[in-house]
């Protein structure tokens, strides 16, 4: 931000002119700020401050106004920023009231604290990051112009406070009334500052949302590039292999769908996400679509990890041997137990005919479940498909 602003600044000092666009009174402060490479706001505040101190700012402004030529613009002059003018007017009013009350504006000792403090504040202000300050300021100005009512109320309070104080200052006995009025004045100043402070907070929030949105957009672009475009290229290259094209399209579809519609889940932490991931991996490995439906969700425990391995083995069996066009997986989490069904509509088999040494069903599914305190039931009939039902208590 800072670099770009510096590089944009002209090398040689340009002639001092009063710009028309964005002027508040006559463009003096803006012109001088461009000359000094400062924020116009700083100079405007300086003029306001010096005006309070013996009217010095007023004289300086008038002199500069007279000696500086107006910037030439084509067409009609753009309008003044009345909202900003009102804000500075109110600020001046507040400072003047404060000056009167402390007797500072008479050129006495009290003048200097105000001037020194004000200049210090301006330096601090100038220290802030220019880009951020710029955005704060535009936000603040916008806020002021949209909350006219608040500005007017603030100005009225300040005026009432000042007048009231003047009326009361003759009588020392009524010093308390004076204090009340001082409170009113401070209240007025706070009211003037409130929109500015509110806009600061709002601006920061907006900045954050903007940043999040940009990150999100970058993520979408990266995702589309890495996955969808890549898959489309692969599909074109494998155009003469329908099986591979289907597999690619299917796995891309699944991935995109998960990305769009599934809440972000950690596949290592929750059951539903883990079941989905296992199904996706087996679907990719064997080229058979696996439809997954999950009801409820819970944290993975040791027992559930065993359940998951058994379910995966059931999916592998179905994909490899059943010749079913599609496999259905249904996982349901209940209050005390988790059940997973893996079903195919393939050719089925006779359970008793499975040789003892076949590890798939006996060991990886039934044995594993029983070792972990769960149960497995296999229901199958030749020609009628196979369904494996796995149950595990949640707290094991």
């Amino acid at each position: 931000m800072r670099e770009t602003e510096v590089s944009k600044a002209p090398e040689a000092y340009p002639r001092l002119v009063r710009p028309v666009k964005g002027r508040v009174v006559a463009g003096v402060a803006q012109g001088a700020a461009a000359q000094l490479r400062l924020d116009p706001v700083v100079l405007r505040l300086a003029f306001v401050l010096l005006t309070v101190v013996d009217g010095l700012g007023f004289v300086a402004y008038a002199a500069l106004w007279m000696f500086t030529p107006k910037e030439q613009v084509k067409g009609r002059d753009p309008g003044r920023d009345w909202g900003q003018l009102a804000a500075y007017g109110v600020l001046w009013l507040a400072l003047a009231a404060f000056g009167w009350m402390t007797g500072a504006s008479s050129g006495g000792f009290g003048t200097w604290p105000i001037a020194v403090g004000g200049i210090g504040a301006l330096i601090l202000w100038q220290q802030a990051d220019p880009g951020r300050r710029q955005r704060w300021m535009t936000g603040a100005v916008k806020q002021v112009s949209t909350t006219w009512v608040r500005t007017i109320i603030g100005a009225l309070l300040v005026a009432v406070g000042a007048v009231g104080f003047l009326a009361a200052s003759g009588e020392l006995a009524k010093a308390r009334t004076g204090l009340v009025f001082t409170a009113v004045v401070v209240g007025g100043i706070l009211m003037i500052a409130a929109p500015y402070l509110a806009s600061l907070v709002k601006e920061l929030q907006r900045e954050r949302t903007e940043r999040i949105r940009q990150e999100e957009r970058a993520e979408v672009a990266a995702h589309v590039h890495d996955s969808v475009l890549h898959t489309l290229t692969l599909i074109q290259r494998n155009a003469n292999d329908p099986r591979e094209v289907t597999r690619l399209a299917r796995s891309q579809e699944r991935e995109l769908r998960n990305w769009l519609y599934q809440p972000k889940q950690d596949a290592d932490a929750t059951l539903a996400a883990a079941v989905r991931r296992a199904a996706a991996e087996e679907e990719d490995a064997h080229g058979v679509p696996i439809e997954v439906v999950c009801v409820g969700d819970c944290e993975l425990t040791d027992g559930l990890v065993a359940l998951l391995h058994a379910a995966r083995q059931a999916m592998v069996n179905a994909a490899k041997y059943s010749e079913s066009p599609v496999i259905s997986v249904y996982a349901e989490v209940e209050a005390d137990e988790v059940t997973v069904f893996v079903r195919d509509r393939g050719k089925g088999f006779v359970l008793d005919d499975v040789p003892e040494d076949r590890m798939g069903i006996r060991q990886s599914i039934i044995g594993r479940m029983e070792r972990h305190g769960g149960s497995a039931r296999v229901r199958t009939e030749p020609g009628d498909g196979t369904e494996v039902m796995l149950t595990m208590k949640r707290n094991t």
Partner: protein
Amino acid sequence: MKTVRVLIVDDHRLFRSGVRAELGPSIQVIGEADDVDSAVAAIADLEPDVVLLDVHMPGGGGQEVLKRVLGPGSQVRFLALSVSDAAEDVIGVIRGGARGYVTKTISGAELTDAITRVSDGDAVFSPRLAGFVLDAFASTEAPPIDPELDSLTQREREVLRLIARGYAYKEIAKELFISVKTVETHVSSVLRKLQLSNRHELSRWATARRLV
């Protein structure tokens, strides 16, 4: 067997012609529409038995069509068809008045079957929709406001669970030792609860399942 007169509403031309080609001889496609306005006009004009309704369309989507067409005395029945698996869309279009929801990957034979079922006044639940319903009706601790509408019976739960497990109606009937007609009655009753229940959980649940 009577033929069912169907209107296809979808903004993808390729998809419309694909569906037309896949449907069985018992289905007669009498028209197509590609946005909300033309769909509403075509429904009034052609009076189809069943409207195949895409969930996502320019001009408000399927829910807008449902809102503008369904009212007292309307005879037309809707079967929602979508590529989206977002719970919000599914629940939204069912609560909007559709009698069923299937995903676009469904085979021609299954779609023909689903259309016939909807035209007979039954409901069509995909496994995923059944899962959503079980999830939505289960995910609450709050006592139901209207027990008749706000909770599922044990039997309805069993039927939905079997649908979610990938069972066809006929297989469910066999499994539970009931008739196919009874299965259909249970599913229609779940559909009615889904459409009429006022419970906030349903919509809140669907919203919570939105992409985060």
